């Protein structure tokens, strides 16, 4: 332990010479010159007379270490290290580096003496480079340098010409005169870099890009790089930012070159003092301190823009730029409230803004601005879940905005979507129709109109809208598909009405629109069904066979025939017998067939056809066989999802069991298995499965698998009274035991006479323990709901119209099974 704490020097002393030699070589090889110096100094101390090249190695270590320090701009330290070389190793290698470090560390007199002493040992190139540095110092009038130069030194030869050029340039003499002076400096002169730098400065006056190019030609180590940086900054596309990279002396000179006046220079100075990302107060103070130099209107805008983040600045802003208008004042309050996440307050302020603008609604800008504010309010209300009360605020704001600015297509569609989501179909269709009226040539609106018209069985109307889309956009596949569906739906309607000629016409129209038999034989099957209704058995057989062939797989053909026949009130079994389709249990099906069938099932479900369960059960055997071939998680999820939606519980259980073989205990598949096994009824779930489902829910929550969490929670909430928590991400999960206890109490209460029941209930509610989350009144009401169900919930809603918030998807989507 003591050994480990000893100094590196002590540890080195312990090493035998042989190991020290090896270590020294290794340190040199890894450029660890600092430690190499210690090793070789120790070796020479042990054996001063050794002739093993240790002195050369020590000299190398010293020189390279000095270069490392110079590389970090530690010129003075580098020079000191180099000065040790002659005494330690009897050598003075590379004196040009030493002289350069002296010059760069400002030790000019010492540098000139060293230059004189070592000049004979320097190469012509080394002398040339050093003289460029010394020339720059002579230009600045460094007396120590000038005095050290012999009268016949080459450095004196062009000094006058260089200084003449400097003076002529600085005194504003014409460019020609400056260039005449520069001509006296030859290309080999130590002042040649000065000639290049001054040429760049001159060029800046007429051609900044060329000036930057001239400055770039200077060597990176040239003493005139400071000037080159100034030239480049002044020539930059954004000099303001480029000036920030310069030091104050350079910036001062650049300011002159750019023609900045004293006030601008002061602004630049303060701007450089500001942090890269100043705070709101610092930014505000900067604007205010420099508002006289800044563009007045822009400064006012910038100050105003900072006020929501820095409200303390309002007094100064008002003093300097005048009082805010009522509109601006409310706008600022609204923005401040948004920053503070006080959205109700923000909505109030925005409302005032809109009202102020509407007061002068004759001004089209004001009308549009008010509409934009109302749309922003709608966004806030939607995002921040403020749609409480009878009329959702979002819809209300958007409707108001359209009265002020009826030309925003997206708002019509947004309103239609909101109504659709809320289950308000009438309003949904109306908004789409309004949009279609206002934007008769907009494909997106027309497609929405097709969908609503189809949903209302207004096929002619739907076909008209879709045809218009295809006129505007002939390759729109969605419009084509919708139009074919509309013709098919209309054809079925005509078949059912006995209008066979019209039905045929519709089927012809669908056939003309279809490309590459993309509907998989549906049109042909319907032609066959039409022929069957017309008592044309042979023609019916031909068309149906063609349709079934186009379906692509026997199981899909079976499904299509069943669904399409049922849609026109024909008995599929009769047709199957006639077509000799045989026993469905003997049909063959593989993965591809199953997935194609699943796509068809989903499409039928989307079209609103809900009687698929019986047909799927007929196909159970081949489908079961196909399910066993599935491997991929995506395939298994798609199949389970479709069977869950259909619903087809038996096959769902089979598919989920297969999925769990491949992906054990995956929560989503556990849910599908138990849902299928219980036939979608939570009360039929066995105790063991209930626990398994609870575990799956925990796993899904931990994995943030929101889809599975939602599905399981919805399953758990079956049979429970409408939950006041539905807007908070679903009802809290109630332990099964507690639910059973509540059910028992409820049943007992139902058995007693109403008067006694109320007394019993009051007594139970009086005994409720205090709750931190709800006030006593709300707690009593919630418990009453849990015990009495829907009736108590309605009472609560009647008493408190604002509580609980209305469910997001009102209407059909939220209907309970029971």
């Amino acid at each position, binding site marked *: 332990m003591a050994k480990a704490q000893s100094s590196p020097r002590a540890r080195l002393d312990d090493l035998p010479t042989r190991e020290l030699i090896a270590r020294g070589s290794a340190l040199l090889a890894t450029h660890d010159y600092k430690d190499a110096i210690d090793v070789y100094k120790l070796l020479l101390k042990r054996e001063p007379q050794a002739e093993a090249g240790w002195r050369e190695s020590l000299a190398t270590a010293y020189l390279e270490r000095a270069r490392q320090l*110079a590389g970090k701009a530690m010129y003075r330290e580098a020079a000191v290290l180099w000065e040790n070389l002659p005494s330690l190793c009897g050598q003075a290698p590379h004196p040009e580096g030493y002289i350069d470090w002296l010059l760069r560390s400002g030790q000019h007199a010492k540098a000139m003496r060293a230059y004189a002493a070592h000049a004979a040992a320097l190469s012509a190139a080394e002398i040339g480079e050093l003289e460029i540095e010394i020339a720059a110092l002579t230009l600045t009038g460094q007396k120590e340098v000038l005095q050290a130069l012999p009268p016949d030194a080459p450095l004196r030869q062009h000094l006058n010409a260089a200084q003449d050029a400097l003076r002529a340039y600085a005194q504003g003499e014409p460019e020609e005169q400056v260039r005449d002076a520069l001509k006296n400096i030859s290309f080999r002169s130590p002042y040649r870099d000065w000639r290049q730098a001054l040429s760049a400065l001159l060029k800046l006056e007429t051609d900044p890009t060329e000036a930057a190019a001239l400055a770039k030609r200077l060597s990176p180590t040239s003493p005139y790089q*400071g000037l080159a940086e100034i030239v480049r900054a002044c020539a930059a596309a954004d000099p303001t930012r480029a000036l920030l990279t310069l030091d104050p002396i350079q910036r001062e000179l650049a300011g002159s070159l750019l023609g900045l006046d004293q006030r601008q220079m002061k602004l630049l100075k303060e701007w450089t003092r500001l942090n890269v990302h100043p705070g709101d107060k610092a930014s505000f103070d900067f604007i205010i301190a420099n508002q006289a130099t800044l563009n007045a209107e822009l400064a006012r805008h910038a100050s105003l823009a900072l006020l929501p983040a820095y409200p303390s600045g309002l007094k100064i802003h008002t003093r300097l730029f005048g009082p805010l208008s009522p509109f601006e004042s409310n706008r600022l309050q609204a923005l401040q409230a948004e920053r503070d996440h006080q959205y109700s307050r923000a909505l109030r302020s925005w409302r005032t803004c809109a009202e102020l603008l509407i007061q002068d609604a004759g001004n089209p800008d004001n009308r549009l601005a008010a509409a934009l504010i109302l749309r922003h309010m709608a966004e806030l209300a939607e995002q921040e879940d403020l749609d409480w009360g009878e009329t959702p605020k979002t819809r209300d704001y958007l409707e108001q905005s359209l009265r002020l600015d009826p030309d925003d297509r997206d708002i019509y569609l947004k309103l239609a979507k909101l109504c659709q989501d809320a289950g308000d179909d009438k309003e949904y269709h109306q908004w789409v129709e309004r949009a279609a009226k206002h934007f008769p040539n907009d494909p997106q609106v027309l497609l929405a109109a097709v969908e609503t018209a189809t949903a209302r069985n207004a096929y002619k109307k739907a076909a008209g809208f879709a045809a218009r889309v295809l006129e505007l956009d002939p390759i729109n596949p969605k419009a084509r598909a919708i139009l074919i569906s509309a013709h098919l739906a209309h054809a079925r309607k005509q078949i059912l009405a006995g209008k066979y000629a019209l039905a045929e016409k519709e089927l012809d129209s669908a056939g003309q629109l279809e490309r590459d038999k993309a509907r998989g034989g549906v049109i042909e099957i319907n032609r066959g069904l039409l022929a069957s209704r017309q008592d044309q058995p042979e023609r019916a057989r031909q068309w149906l066979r063609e349709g079934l062939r186009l379906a692509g797989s026997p199981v899909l053909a079976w499904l299509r025939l069943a669904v399409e026949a049922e849609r026109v009130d024909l008995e599929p079994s009769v047709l199957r017998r006639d077509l000799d389709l045989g026993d469905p249990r003997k049909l063959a099906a593989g993965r591809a067939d199953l997935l194609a069938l699943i796509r068809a099932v989903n499409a039928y479900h989307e079209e609103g056809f809900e009687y698929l369960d019986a047909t799927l059960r007929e196909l159970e055997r081949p489908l079961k066989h196909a399910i066993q071939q599935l491997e991929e998680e995506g395939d298994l999820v798609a199949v389970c999802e479709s069977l869950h939606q259909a619903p087809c519980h038996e096959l769902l259980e089979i598919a989920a069991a297969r999925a769990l073989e491949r992906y054990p205990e995956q929560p989503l598949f556990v849910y599908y298995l138990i849902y299928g096994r219980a036939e979608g009824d939570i009360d039929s779930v066995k105790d063991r499965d209930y626990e398994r489902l609870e575990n799956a829910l925990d796993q899904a929550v931990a994995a943030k698998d929101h889809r599975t969490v939602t599905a399981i929670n919805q399953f758990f909430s079956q049979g429970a009274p409408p939950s006041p928590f539905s807007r908070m991400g679903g009802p809290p999960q109630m332990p099964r035991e507690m639910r059973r206890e509540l059910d028992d109490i409820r049943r007992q209460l139902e058995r007693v006479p109403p008067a006694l029941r109320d007394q019993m209930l009051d007594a139970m509610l009086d005994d409720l323990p205090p709750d931190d989350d709800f006030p006593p009144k709300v707690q009593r009401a919630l418990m009453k709901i849990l015990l009495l169900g829907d009736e108590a919930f309605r009472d609560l809603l009647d008493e408190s119209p604002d509580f609980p918030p209305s469910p997001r998807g009102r209407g059909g989507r939220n209907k309970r099974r029971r």
Partner: protein
Amino acid sequence: MPNPFAVLGVAEDADDDAIKKAYLQQVREHPPERNPERFQAIRAAYEAVKTRRDRLRHRILQQEPPDLAGLVATALQPGARRRPSEFQLRQVLSQPLIGPK
């Protein structure tokens, strides 16, 4: 976000045509293949203010802190260029030599 009007080099009361013209001019000067970042900034600025509706929305609802750099750049518009004095030149040349050799 930088002030979109400053990015495009137009006045705040510029109309649709002037803004589009300035946008196309900027895109010609800074095409995406040469300066993708600058192009993105120009594109974003154009999208923010290209129509009257966009400009009103920007003016009313914009919550970004002001573009101080743009503000300063506007105030530092170069004036009549002056040559530096002998003193300034010698001062810059007297600064320590730059960079390792």
